[in-house]
């Protein structure tokens, strides 16, 4: 079979518009959005509702997600999971974050991740999130592709900026389980800035103030020449609208002489009352508050006093972020508001005062993140080849290693731009030592016990030498999603040490594969069909990418012999892709073609760099 490679300058395939979605995977509600006819839109259900409650119900035979699951919350609380985002990538100790009343039966392996016992078995937070993602993707697929067999090209999923590596990895694992191709994990504040920024095509420095129910995020970004660069990110993972409600509730209790001993039901009632008062004060200047036979009124000034300390805490975090970014408050051109709690007027006033400019509130703070994710997803699948937009993000928390005495030595500082790779040298302390353990942590504190444990790596196969003679270079690489990869090598001998990764609170690859298999009721056949489909899609990606590259630069960057050899490899891949029904065979062919084209790919990138810097075209560069 002969492969058609078009002439340089022509695209190898007619450019088809690809369908991609943006997902805001929230604690309480999730949203899926997509760019349709040029502008981002939230995808709504038949009732016109865009919010999908982040709830999963495990019934006798079925799994329900969203509104249908939320309706089961009161009837069957043990089998209805909510707020699982709080447990993502966390250890069993994070369970208290669900409140004392979480009715779940839990199983936590010692020091490991928590599982929730349902009638359908033990469910990890990753699995429950995967169900939500599946439902969102299906909603997107139905709306965008209807009954067609075509699949989504991929998804951008947003995560809080403060999410550590384990929490990001858990989110990506959930997407893998849901069968979604993740184009990028995007920080929520960055997504919000995209939703605002691209509309206006502005240049300047932007602050994104994101106050949700339980967490506060602040990000400082710079938009220049179409590049969105995150300069610094910070926040407070225990500050949000729930604290506002608590402050108002305490005021009610103080004023009404209510004793502190409320039963759980009364607690819920008084918090609900407080929340209602807070929300009403965004619309009207004064509200009546009534608690049993006590009655009073609360106005906006009164609310401001109650919330003063909490809001001041958020402003302090803004100061820190500005300092990290090396930017003064007066230099901020625009402030973007995200999260339902920014509807509180006292918050808007404090933010306006600190930054000296009125915050932008014209996009609904509940949907702005999903809309930004949709815009980014659309750009990533190549639907906007003319727009030069690029997002450069940072690592939100420092990465470090455990050293002697329970101390942490930082390897990568917070707010370092990603992707990043850093190498660290270790040595052996015993003669003939052939293995060592490396403990990776994330956080800003000096002591191991105050940081989050990400993983332990066991390096094996170190050549036996006298103590201190072996030098093991361990390279930590953080990709554009904020995910970590580790490799190790003995410097003198070049021997690669093998690494066993044990995520502290995550799932290892084997577990994910098992879960994938278990998630198919008709096990083997489904599993095989899906694996085959995945390899076919990956093969298509590789074929298209290499074809486009060869059409553009093949004649310039490859010798005639190299060109023919690469063409032959690609033809082989096309043949296997078309004829084989075995996923492993296609995978092997992809690997071969990938290897054969890697040098060409590197040459292209090198050449494009030279061209970009000199402002000349590739042709000019080649001609010298």
């Amino acid at each position: 079979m002969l492969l058609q490679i078009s002439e340089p300058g022509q695209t190898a395939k007619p450019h088809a518009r690809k369908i991609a979605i943006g997902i805001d995977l929230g604690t309480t509600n999730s949203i899926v959005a997509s760019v349709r006819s040029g502008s981002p839109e939230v995808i709504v259900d038949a009732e016109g509702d865009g919010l999908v409650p982040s709830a999963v119900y495990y019934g006798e035979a079925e799994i329900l997600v969203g509104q249908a699951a939320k309706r089961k919350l009161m009837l069957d609380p043990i089998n209805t999971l909510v707020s699982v985002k709080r447990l993502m990538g966390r250890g069993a100790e994070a369970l208290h974050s669900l409140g004392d009343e979480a009715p779940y039966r839990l199983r936590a392996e010692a020091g490991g991740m928590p599982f929730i016992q349902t009638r359908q078995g033990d469910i990890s937070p990753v699995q429950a999130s995967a169900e939500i993602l599946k439902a969102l993707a299906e909603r997107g697929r139905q709306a965008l592709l209807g009954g067609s067999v075509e699949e989504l090209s991929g998804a951008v999923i947003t995560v809080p900026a403060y999410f550590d590596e384990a929490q990001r990895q858990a989110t990506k694992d959930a997407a893998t389980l849901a069968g979604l191709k993740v184009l990028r994990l995007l920080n929520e504040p960055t997504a919000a800035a995209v939703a605002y920024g691209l509309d206006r095509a502005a240049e300047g420095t932007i602050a994104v103030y994101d106050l949700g129910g339980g967490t506060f995020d602040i990000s400082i970004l710079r938009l220049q020449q179409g590049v969105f660069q995150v300069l610094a990110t910070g926040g407070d993972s225990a500050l949000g609208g729930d604290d506002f409600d608590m402050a108002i509730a305490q005021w009610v209790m103080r004023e009404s002489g209510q004793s502190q001993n409320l039963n759980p039901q009364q607690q819920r009632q008084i918090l609900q009352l407080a929340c209602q008062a807070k929300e009403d004060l965004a619309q009207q200047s004064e509200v009546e508050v009534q608690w049993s036979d006590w009655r009073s009124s609360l106005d906006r000034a009164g609310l401001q006093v109650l919330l003063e300390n909490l809001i001041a805490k958020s402003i302090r975090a803004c100061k820190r972020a500005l300092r990290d970014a090396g930017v003064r408050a007066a230099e901020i051109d625009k402030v973007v508001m995200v999260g339902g709690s920014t509807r509180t007027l006292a918050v808007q006033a404090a933010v306006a005062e600190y930054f000296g400019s009125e915050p932008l509130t014209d996009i609904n703070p509940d949907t702005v993140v999903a809309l930004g994710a949709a815009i980014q997803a659309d750009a990533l699948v190549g639907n906007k080849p003319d727009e030069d937009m690029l997002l450069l993000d940072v690592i939100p928390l420092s990465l470090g290693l455990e050293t002697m005495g329970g101390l942490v030595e930082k390897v990568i500082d917070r707010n370092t731009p990603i992707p990043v790779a850093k190498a660290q040298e270790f040595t052996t302390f015993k003669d003939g030592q052939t293995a060592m353990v490396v403990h990776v942590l994330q956080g800003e504190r000096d002591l191991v016990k105050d940081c989050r444990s990400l993983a332990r790596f066991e390096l094996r196969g170190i050549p036996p030498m006298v103590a201190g003679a072996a030098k093991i270079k361990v390279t930590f690489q953080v990709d554009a999603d904020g995910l970590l990869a580790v490799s190790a090598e003995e410097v003198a001998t070049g021997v690669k040490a093998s690494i066993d990764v044990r995520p502290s609170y995550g799932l290892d690859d084997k577990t994910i594969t098992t879960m994938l298999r278990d998630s198919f009721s008709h096990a083997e056949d489904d599993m095989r069909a899906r694996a085959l489909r995945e390899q076919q899609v990956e093969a298509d990606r590789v074929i298209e990418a290499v074809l486009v590259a060869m059409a553009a630069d093949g004649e310039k960057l490859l010798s005639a012999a190299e060109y023919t050899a690469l063409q032959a490899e690609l033809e082989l891949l096309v043949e296997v892709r078309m004829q084989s029904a075995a996923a492993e065979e296609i995978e092997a062919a992809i690997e071969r073609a990938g290897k054969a084209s890697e040098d060409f790919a590197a040459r292209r990138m090198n050449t494009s760099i030279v061209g970009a810097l000199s402002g000349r075209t590739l042709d000019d560069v080649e001609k010298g």
Partner: protein
Amino acid sequence: MSLDKNHFQLFGLPQSFAVDKLVLAERQRTLQKEVHPDRFATAGERQQRLAVQMAAQVNQAFEVLSSPVKRGDYLLELAGLDTNFDSYTHQDMDFLMEQMALRDSMDELKSMAKPESALDDLIAKVDRLDQQLQQQFAQKFECGDLDSAKGSLAKMHFSQKLAAELSRVEAELLDY
């Protein structure tokens, strides 16, 4: 697999201590537009991995070229000198005395009722000193006196540590 260039070559800059920050930032954006993994979001996994490595290399080069101390270290390393300053013995007693005096001033800030203006003065002083050291380094390096340049660089390391601590003290005092 990596870009076969040193940091200066990668950014298309002359191998010199003087670097134009605006040009550097502009080239950083230009280069990332070419190599960032988002540019290859729908290409195969191998191309993605390659892009991650190259984008990391661009970021690493940017970090080194942006920081005077790291840039100095790098220039001397390219010239074949050892830049491990952990066991470096400082010869210049006046410099060490001055550094100790600055440290004392920093400690005094902590017990002041209104440290703001003293803090600003100290920050300005440390900054001036740092600028001087950078000039010294640049001068000696450009005329090829690498051993003297290394002496200035050792002082820059010293001064940078002080600046970092001062920045921590500032955060504490101003309640960031």
